[in-house]
């Protein structure tokens, strides 16, 4: 039973990270129908920014709490800025172009950003400062759930609730929902669609940045390539849950995380990704729009 619990928490931690990144995919997809391949890179840039800032601050001797807050803030701000810029440069001019062109632009952006960080920083793995200390009260459970797992779970939960409130009740949230459902009509009721799309990218990127910082601190290292794999997994999670649906992204993230964790634990980690993708295929065969996705008519 303890083994099961351990695997369960390990899956939850993994799932939270997937969910945080998947939110960005799903929000962007919902609003402009684009698979934002560069999103994984935004996550990586967030992690890298927090790495740089946290290391600088710790060298200058700042206290831990202020390092965590400032690094998190910097990660969110810069990731959001990158997300905003990427949309403006690489996607906005293509809004009326064939959808595949935008997809290629996104792939190009992803390659560009990866190599930009590689050149600007380093190709080697870098030690990430430990931002989440071991809490004393967690010591009895440390062999099952670590302190950083706990922080990741709590942060994810908090972010989810915050995002749901934002989407549901705020003015910009309503504008986002309207834009994702019918862009022309959104314009006709006076919504500045460009602004809404920018805000979507900003929010999605900031969430990914927080995920990036948490996971980098959890595993204690970082390099320029982490965005690619996390990005593909998170995208899988988003589709699994039904792309375009926010609760779907969260659910998809957890389902994927738990599947991988249990597959590793009870079968073999050799095939952990095979399990993940097989699950995806199976779910899509029986529910072609994902777990919580709506079966809408094909968008053109």
């Amino acid at each position, binding site marked *: 039973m303890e083994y099961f619990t351990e695997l369960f928490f390990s899956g939850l931690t993994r799932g939270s990270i997937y969910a945080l990144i998947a939110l960005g995919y799903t929000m962007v997809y919902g609003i402009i129908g684009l698979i934002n391949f560069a999103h994984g890179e935004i996550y990586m840039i967030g992690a890298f920014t927090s790495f740089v800032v946290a290391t600088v601050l710790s060298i200058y001797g700042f206290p831990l709490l202020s390092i965590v807050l400032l690094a998190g803030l910097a990660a969110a701000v810069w990731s959001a800025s990158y997300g905003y810029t990427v949309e403006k440069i690489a996607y906005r001019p293509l809004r009326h172009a064939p959808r595949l062109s935008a997809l290629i632009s996104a792939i190009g952006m992803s390659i560009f950003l990866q190599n930009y960080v590689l050149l600007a920083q380093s190709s080697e793995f870098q030690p990430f400062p430990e931002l989440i200390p071991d809490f004393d009260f967690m010591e009895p459970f440390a062999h099952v759930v670590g302190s950083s797992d706990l922080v990741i779970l709590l942060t994810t939960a908090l972010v989810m609730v915050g995002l749901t409130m934002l989407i549901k009740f705020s*003015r910009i949230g*309503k504008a986002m*929902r309207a834009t994702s459902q019918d862009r*022309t*009509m959104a*314009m*006709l009721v*006076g*919504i500045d*669609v460009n602004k809404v799309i920018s805000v979507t990218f900003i929010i999605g990127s900031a969430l990914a940045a927080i995920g990036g910082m948490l996971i980098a601190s959890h595993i204690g290292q970082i390099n320029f390539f982490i965005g690619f794999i996390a990005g593909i997994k998170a995208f899988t999670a988003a589709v699994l849950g039904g792309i375009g649906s926010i609760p779907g992204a969260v659910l998809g993230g957890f389902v994927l995380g738990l599947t991988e964790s249990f597959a590793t634990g009870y079968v073999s980690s050799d095939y952990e990704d095979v399990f993940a993708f097989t699950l995806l295929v199976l779910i899509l065969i029986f529910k072609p729009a994902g777990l919580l996705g709506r079966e809408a008519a094909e968008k053109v």
Partner: protein
Amino acid sequence: MLELQNVHTYYGNIHALKGISLEIKSGEIITLIGANGAGKSTTLMSICGVVPPRSGEILFRGECITQKSPDHIVALGVCQVPEGRHIFPQLTVQENLDMGAFLRTDKEEIKHDLEYVFSLFPILAERRAQAGGTLSGGEQQMLAMSRALMARPQLLLLDEPSMGLAPLIIRQIFEIIKKINQEQDTTIFLVEQNANQALHIADRGYVIENGAITISDSAENLLANPDVQKAYLGI
């Protein structure tokens, strides 16, 4: 109130509007009739800035709005009920109406307007909590019009409000259009294929063919015009 001067609009390489000029005065109901693909909807989309014209000028109350973004134009008081109604399918009726008042901040007045549209279309009040996508065609048309009214437009652009609806509902809709025009002092620009109905409530009308205005006259004269009768009235 609204003036189009030699407006040219393109979809990609397709020259959809080839020099449209027309004028709408405050308080009028003006109708634009024409066949499928003549450029009726494009005219409305050009006015609203969704498909901005490549050349020519659009003036609203003397102000040039040709290159303004749609949200600015809506803020000036130009609202459109587009063809096919475009209800936000996953928002409730109430939320759809709220979206109509997106740019407004006067809470009290919004409440007042909400009551007004519910008085126009009582069925919507019943369906307040229902998702927009689940309404029937007629109800959707009512919702679309109500949503536009929630913005308190000075100029209301209606694109084929009768399309796909039962004759009884069409009649009801046209009555309400007339009513809005009179009670709210809203100028109305009505695009219709159902020329007969439209001309009966309109003051003046334009006929559009192949992206250009071919006839412009008072509604009565148009109803009597043999060419119009033959082409659009099925007489």
